[in-house]
């Protein structure tokens, strides 16, 4: 079919183009610009080429050591919460009532934490986990488990992980619930006739049918947890010491605390590239998985 060619049509995408330009391309290019320069204030910049990048990616330098340490903490945090939230979310979804008022109520309860703003969540848990006036921290101490997240690394990580579970497991549960609901009854009936065990039903029917929603869920949870900032900033401020200083927190410290715009710029770009690379891998896995399904 012949399509008419009219170059005036370019004007139709101009608004979208301008929006993307001002909220993504220009800010990103500004960061790229910072990352190749050094400044001592007064808006005076000196060309530094790839210097910051070399320093950042060299673990023996001060900046590189710091970067890899926070990168490790971020990766560890994402790994822990994915390992907990995904299985837990699936379990919650399987235990949810299938219909009626009980379903409506559990949907509301599960969705509630998702609606609370990040800094409010942080403040809630900051108070809740305090050992002097917080119900959670006070109770633990009262039953004889020493718990103080302001000076104990394990306690600080526990608070952040439990807080993230509370905040986001519901997302995985809701996604999985929708996935489970879409499985026709006939599958379960056929499995019964085939004599399948409960485990076989899960592994052979439910998990394959959930694989698409789970991939999306894992991707969302990975990005969110890998870029988490507000909650640890509010609860621990990155401490004790640097124990919960994730990449995002370290980045803000360098950029706004020390005002090292060049180092922070280089770190931002590498950080962004890591997130992009992981998302690309996920996307590829998802798309090839679907294509395989189509071709058999």
């Amino acid at each position, binding site marked *: 079919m012949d399509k008419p060619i009219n170059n005036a049509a370019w004007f139709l995408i101009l608004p979208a183009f301008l929006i993307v330009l001002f909220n993504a391309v220009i800010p990103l290019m500004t960061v790229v610009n910072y990352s190749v320069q050094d400044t001592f204030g007064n808006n005076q910049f000196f060309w530094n080429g790839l210097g910051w990048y070399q320093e950042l990616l060299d673990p023996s330098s001060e900046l590189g050591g710091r970067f890899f340490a926070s990168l490790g903490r971020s990766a560890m945090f994402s790994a822990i919460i994915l390992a907990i939230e995904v299985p837990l979310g699936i379990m919650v979804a399987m235990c949810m009532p299938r219909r009626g008022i009980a379903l409506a109520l559990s949907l509301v309860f599960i969705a509630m934490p998702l609606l609370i703003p990040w800094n409010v969540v942080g403040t809630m848990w900051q108070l809740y986990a305090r050992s002097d006036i917080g119900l959670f921290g006070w109770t633990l101490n009262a039953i004889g488990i020493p718990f103080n997240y302001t000076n104990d690394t394990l306690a600080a990580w526990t608070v952040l992980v439990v807080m993230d579970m509370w905040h986001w497991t519901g997302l995985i549960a809701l996604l999985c619930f929708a996935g489970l609901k879409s499985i026709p009854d006939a599958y379960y*009936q056929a499995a*019964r*006739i*085939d*004599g399948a065990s409960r485990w*076989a039903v899960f592994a*052979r029917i439910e998990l394959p049918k959930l694989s698409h929603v789970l991939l999306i869920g894992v991707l969302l949870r990975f990005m969110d947890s890998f870029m988490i900032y507000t909650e640890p900033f509010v609860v621990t401020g990155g401490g004790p010491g640097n124990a919960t200083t994730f990449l995002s927190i370290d980045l803000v410290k360098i950029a706004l605390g020390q005002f090292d715009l060049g180092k922070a710029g280089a770190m931002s770009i590498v950080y962004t590239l890591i997130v992009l690379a992981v998302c690309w891998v996920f996307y590829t896995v998802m798309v090839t998985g679907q294509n395989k399904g189509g*071709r058999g």
Partner: protein
Amino acid sequence: MARIDLVDLAHSYLSQPPDATHYALKPMTMHWRQGGAYALLGPSGCGKTTLLNIISGLVVPSQGQVLFDGRDVTRLPTEARNIAQVFQFPVIYDTMSVRQNLAFPLQNRGVPAAEIEARVKEIAELLDLGNALDRRARGLTADAKQKISLGRGLVRADVAAILFDEPLTVIDPALKWELRSKLKALHRRLDLTMIYVTHDQTEALTFADTVVVMHDGAIVQTGRPNELFDRPEHTFVGHFIGSPGMNVLPARVEGRTAEVGGVAVELARAYPAQPAGRRIEIGIRPEYARLTASGGLPVRVERIDDVGRIRFARVRLGAASLSVVAPRGVPVEGDRALLALDAHQIHVYADSRRLEGAA
């Protein structure tokens, strides 16, 4: 191998049904002989799937018993019964190959690997799936998937009955015939009881040697296809089977005469007088009522539908309206024509049930 008996069976989805209208399945007693090819035919919501699920054990009936070879299995779970079921939409295990799909029911029952291998091969050959064994089941066409569903039933050596719940719904029309003939061939070869649920009379009449017609939760007639056609025991069977269905006309019957819409019609048999208050109707299939050149009842023709092989006319006989065959070449003057009824094919119904007249 099993003969299936349903004894005084009834089911309601409510735990305390207030009256008979709340029963999805009204009390019934029914015998399915070993090796029969049955069709359960009826419109949507008539209870045929409920009946099927009770036989397979997916639903426990509110009352009555299900016997397999005289053994009470009413409360036995479905995996403990030697039946298989094929569903409306093909059910396959997505992540497994065709071979693994077929082996799955045997693995779950702890059959030795060598035996599984041999059995899977045999069934795959039977279903023409032999060269697709190592493909992933998920990418196959709907008819191949439906064959896999069937294969998972056949592969079990102990299976005595296979239940089909409208299995051809999602199959291309061109492949429906093929798959249905395959089923018939399998039935002849394997000596299995097959029960086939459908709302499509063509599927039922071509597949089954015994058709069970259900209406409103009850079995209204059981018989061979030609019996259902020539001697419908219930006006519903007359309506439901045949296209167009049987003409059912309110009438007054006395002895060998019926008065229909103010016109007297001769009957082949004599019928005793019926108590007052019963609804009396006569039924005649369009195929046995035809327009004729001479010697019939005068009727007014309202419409003629040419369906290709045959023409049907909608005519008025007095006040009654019915469908009849309009053979090509029979004169219709204006809207006037003559109608000949085959007296031997006129049935008399009292409250929808057929009356047996006296010769």
